[in-house]
């Protein structure tokens, strides 16, 4: 009897989880539609958009500079012994550049921004929600979705590709520093070796990845923050789940985009 009951309650718990997930999925989809509706309906808050772009860039620039440089430097250093054993160290710049452009720069930038920007958007909107600032906007006949959500999502979508490009530059600096200290290669020769095997599709893949990762960070942060409840506890939860959910989706998108772009190679 006890076993039947516990199996029954496990079943209920499982179906409740499925229900919650489906409800969450529907609410997320509704939020996405609301974003597109408001983004396309005119009266764009350009000043707030520029302000958000500046905040995102300013808050992540130092971290991205350092991480980009270290990634390039360490990746080159770690790859060297394997290539040396085949006598193929001359391939090092092109190998590392392909890895940086195709995968590392957009991924590293997005993961940093998911932590830094996504959590900040989640916490800021969550705090505005629980302190009734969003309600205050609504009763002032100002559309909070347009002012808070559209501007932030577009800002992450535009700024993260720029930051990814910058991260790639910093990583290439790290690569050059490592290569030049070991092989006495000139800068033009390094550039030629590095970009020799990069094709147009690699650049497009990087741009598509960075744009979709940026959009994901923006929409997840805004959704979690905008739907925060339960006071300060809810704000913390919104910030935390923004980061976790963004990172999870970024990895899924990475796999998906790699699969799709490989069909065109």
């Amino acid at each position, binding site marked *: 009897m006890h076993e039947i009951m516990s199996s029954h309650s496990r079943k209920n718990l499982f179906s409740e989880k499925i229900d919650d997930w489906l409800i969450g999925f529907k609410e997320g989809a509704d939020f996405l539609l609301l974003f597109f509706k408001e983004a396309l309906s005119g009266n764009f808050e350009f000043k707030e958009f520029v302000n958000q772009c500046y905040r995102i860039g300013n808050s992540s620039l130092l971290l991205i500079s350092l991480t980009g440089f270290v990634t390039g430097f360490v990746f080159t250093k770690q790859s060297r012994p394997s290539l040396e054993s085949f006598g193929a160290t001359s391939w090092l710049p092109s190998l590392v550049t392909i890895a940086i452009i195709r995968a590392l720069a957009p991924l590293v930038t997005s993961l940093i921004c998911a932590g830094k920007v996504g959590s900040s958007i989640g916490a800021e909107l969550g705090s505005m929600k629980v*302190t009734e*600032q969003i309600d*205050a906007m609504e009763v*002032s*006949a100002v559309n909070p979705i347009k002012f808070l959500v559209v501007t932030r999502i577009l800002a992450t979508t535009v700024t993260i590709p720029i930051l990814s490009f910058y991260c790639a530059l910093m990583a290439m600096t790290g690569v050059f520093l490592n290569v030049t200290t070991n092989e006495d290669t000139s800068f033009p020769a390094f550039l030629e070796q590095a970009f020799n095997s990069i094709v147009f599709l690699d650049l497009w893949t990087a741009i598509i990845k960075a744009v979709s990762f940026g959009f994901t960070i923006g929409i997840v942060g805004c959704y979690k923050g905008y739907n925060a409840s339960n006071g300060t506890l809810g704000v913390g939860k919104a910030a935390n789940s923004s980061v976790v959910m963004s990172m999870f989706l970024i990895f899924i998108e990475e796999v998906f985009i790699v699969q799709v772009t490989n069909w065109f190679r």
Partner: protein
Amino acid sequence: MNKVIEIEHLYKAFGDRKVLIDANLDVYESENMVVLGRSGTGKSVLIKIIAGILPADKGSVKVLGQEVTQLNKKEMNELRLKIGFSFQNSALYDSMTVRENLEFPLVRNVRNMSRGEINKAVHKVLDSVGLLKSIDQMPSELSGGQKKRIGIARTLIMNPTIMLYDEPTAGLDPITCMEINQLINEVKENYKTSSIIITHDLTCAKETGDRVAVLFDGNFKFQGTFDEVFKDPDPRIKNFYDYNFIENQKK
């Protein structure tokens, strides 16, 4: 006198918890109506329904002759320009200065205003709440009473016809409460507003209210002037009065 707010047979529930049950209330032009009640009885829910932040489950809510429950988003926003809402925790935008907080609704709703006109409007309302010197301060630098005043100023900048005050004296010391009560009366005089003041503070009710309505069990069983309502022999009214005046005096 004309009715500016008419609430008829209003129902609102959150899940199984019924908050408003067949609530009826009228507010007349140039009148301060105080809504009293214990915490959690649905006082704030009532004004959030009036401002269109929360939807009603059933019933009619007419504001300035317009049925709020049937307005679309655009019509609701037009109506909202005539309603000022002062939030319990002031709800000032904490990333903006006082000046930016006040300019925020103005620049987005009144087009073609010059910089000079905006500045003049901001200075006028700040002066009317006595906080001109705080114009470039951040909300975090203000006291609770100052935040309330700025919150009221932010609504006054749009010259509202109706003011909705949610617990205007909550969490303030007695002297600041007195100043806020005075400000509510000044707003009524100077801006010719009709107001609903949500509170559980009887001093505030007595000082500011032309009429009082007490919310018990989801509806307004007692309405009238302050003295009329608190002469009622109902034990719930007596308890409410005794706790506010006698217990507070003991404290």
